[in-house]
């Protein structure tokens, strides 16, 4: 039996609007029916474009988001239906590493306090001394000096902060760690350090990972099994090598072909499948196959009307495409070759953005009148930032 199994998990965020009392006028279908299983000791990688629901799914596993529907079976228990307090206790075994190493550390807690917080919550270690011993041990493991204990997060470099984040998860000795974009905020040279560390720890502690990232190369590097997400659902799942060798879903194919490889030979000779347009809004997903609006292999039948199921094509290769076999066998031509790289995409993304602005505007109104200076920041930056294309943070500007 798998250690962690997701069965038809859905997370829908209600979109609220109203003159006097808020009323639900729609949903953002962030995660829309995902089933997958993760074996103990394995690394499961999740990739997909920004906004496709990776983070939401990751959080749903820990029930940091409400799960609208479906089961999250962890070691035999369905987390989705656990009472609050039970769930809290389960979290000891399921941990998370966050994308933003600085943002996920409380700026006012020193490292010792950050690391012992979770231990205290789960009653690990009889007293602070005992906990400190344990923490020191973990610190050594993640390559941080023990004198880091008394320091504060802002005194560390990016890579070190991420190590702290990892250490925080490790002190609880969890079974599963969910890593949400653990390296995307880091510089390339640091990325490798953290990736190596993750692998090393997995080996020495026998951990199970769910690694979320938008960088296919990163995911492939450390995952045993990869799931490719598109607009809230899995479109393809396969063992890492298999996926690279034979991507079956048109989206995966496009994704693969778009990832730049630091090798001129490869770059010059590869065939690119350019997708047209952008990711549609999860608040208003296309009918049928979610991908059909951008799919170069789109067919007149089925694609726009029927939602494809994940079908196992053997070797643990599961694909959600009506025409996967036909494409694999080369029986279908891609409309792509002649299609310019710049075909119009559906304009629906803007809808989602409007909703987001409204949401933010509401919050803003509540907070208005308090501190205008704060407001400046929000007003300028707030609206829209949620709609920015990618999740990859801009490297912090100085000054």
């Amino acid at each position, binding site marked *: 039996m798998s250690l962690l199994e997701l069965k038809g998990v859905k997370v829908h965020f209600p979109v609220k609007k109203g003159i006097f009392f808020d009323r639900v006028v729609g949903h953002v279908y962030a995660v829309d029916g995902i089933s997958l299983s993760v074996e103990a000791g394995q690394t499961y990688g999740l990739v997909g474009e920004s906004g496709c629901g990776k983070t939401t799914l990751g959080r749903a596993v820990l029930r940091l988001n409400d799960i609208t529907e479906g089961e999250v079976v962890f070691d035999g228990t369905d987390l989705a239906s656990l009472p609050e307090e039970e769930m809290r206790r389960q979290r000891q075994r399921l941990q998370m590493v966050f994308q933003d190493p600085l943002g996920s550390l409380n700026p006012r807690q020193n490292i010792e306090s950050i690391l012992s917080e979770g231990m205290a919550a789960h009653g690990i270690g009889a007293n602070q001394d005992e906990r400190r011993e344990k923490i020191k041990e973990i610190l050594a493991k993640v390559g941080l000096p023990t004198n880091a204990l008394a320091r504060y997060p802002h005194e560390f470099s990016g890579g070190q902060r991420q190590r702290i984040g990892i250490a925080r998860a490790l002190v609880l000795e969890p079974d599963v760690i969910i890593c949400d974009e653990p390296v995307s905020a880091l510089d390339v040279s640091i990325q490798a350090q953290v990736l190596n560390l993750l692998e090393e720890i997995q080996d020495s502690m026998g951990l199970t990972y769910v690694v979320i990232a938008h960088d296919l190369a990163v995911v492939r*590097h450390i995952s045993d099994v990869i799931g490719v997400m598109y607009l809230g659902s899995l479109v393809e799942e396969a063992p890492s090598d298999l996926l690279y060798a034979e991507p079956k879903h048109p989206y995966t194919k496009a994704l693969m072909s778009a990832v730049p490889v630091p090798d001129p030979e490869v770059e010059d000779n590869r065939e690119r499948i350019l997708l047209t347009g952008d990711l549609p809004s999860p608040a208003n997903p296309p009918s049928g196959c979610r991908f059909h609006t951008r799919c170069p292999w789109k067919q007149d039948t089925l694609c726009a009307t029927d939602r494809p199921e994940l079908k196992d094509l053997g070797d643990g290769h599961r694909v959600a495409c009506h025409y996967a076999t036909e494409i694999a066998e080369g029986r279908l031509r891609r409309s792509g070759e002649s299609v310019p790289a710049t075909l119009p995409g559906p304009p629906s993304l803007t809808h989602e953005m409007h909703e987001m602005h409204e949401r933010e505007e509401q919050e803003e109104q509540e907070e208005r009148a308090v501190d205008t200076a704060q407001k400046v920041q929000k007003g300028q930056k707030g609206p829209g930032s949620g709609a920015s294309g990618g999740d990859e943070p801009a490297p912090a500007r100085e000054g």
Partner: protein
Amino acid sequence: MALLSVDELSITFTRRGQRDAKAVSGVSFDIDPGQVVGLVGESGCGKSVTSLALMGLLPDKGVRIGGTADYDGTDLLSLSKNRMRDMRGTQLAMIFQDPLSSLNPVVPIGVQVTEILKRHRGMKGEAARKEAADLLDRVGIPDPTRRLKEYPHQLSGGMRQRALIAMAVACAPRMLIADEPTTALDVTIQAQILELLKELVDQEGTGLLMITHDLGVVAGLCDKVNVLYAGRVVESAERRPLFAAPTHPYSHGLLGSIPRLDAPRGEKLNPIRGSINDNIEWADGCAFAPRCDYYTMECLTGTPQLTEPLTAGHQVRCVNPVVEGSTPNDDGDAGRAESAGEDAVGDARDGKSADIEKADTTEASS
């Protein structure tokens, strides 16, 4: 003749009560028409500052700029503000990293495009609007007349970057600077934008300075590559020789630390230890030395020069370049990493003080 020839560019930030910060020093490169020159390096190595200096967009106060940037016989760095204003948009244009924040949120796209036509091409009213629509169409924005009336937040990320490109090419500049134009975008969108840039360069013969930290992008797009480390070009070469044989330990390390999609799985990454902030205030010496696996005693003194140790056109700033057969310098190294790394914890706030992070010593010595 080169379209743009940058020679010994150096940029120093000065601030009262603080030590001068050299962001860029002695950077030189040429760009020919129709050529794509890459500038790669980690965050903070001086890529953006270089591009801003060329565009004359650095603040007036608190910055010292040295060297020359010869464009068509004029030195961009010594042009008057007004002359530079005339150059920008017509001769040189720029595309920025974050397409959302680079567009004025409260002004419709149309106005943002037409204002440049009005300024440099003297177009007015309907004519300008039509030209703007054509421009949007050219960069692949569907339904351009409608888009003209929309605001940046109503466009998707890729669309915004296209709009920015439309503005950049509005007056057919001969030189384009793109500062991480795809970093904020998804890979599928990135592919589209890169394709568009390639097209522009090919069709118009524009010179393109491509700034990025993604070696993959460089590998696919650039003709020449300059690798920057802490404000200096550490390696400069044609694309193929560079990727075939990265000679500077930094470029070498960089390539070794990127997981490649096409590499066999299970292959170990070879990270560079520490971070770019790890530079002691060496009075002299190579800035990369503290992180370098190949450093020798010489690295700790005198600044190495850009030389062409191996092939013509392949320059490296290193006294102990990585060539076939050279191995990481172990002598005393492990000890150093051990002793310093054990108790040194980085100060991320400034690069002034030492910060040697304990790297994964296992890899470092393997």
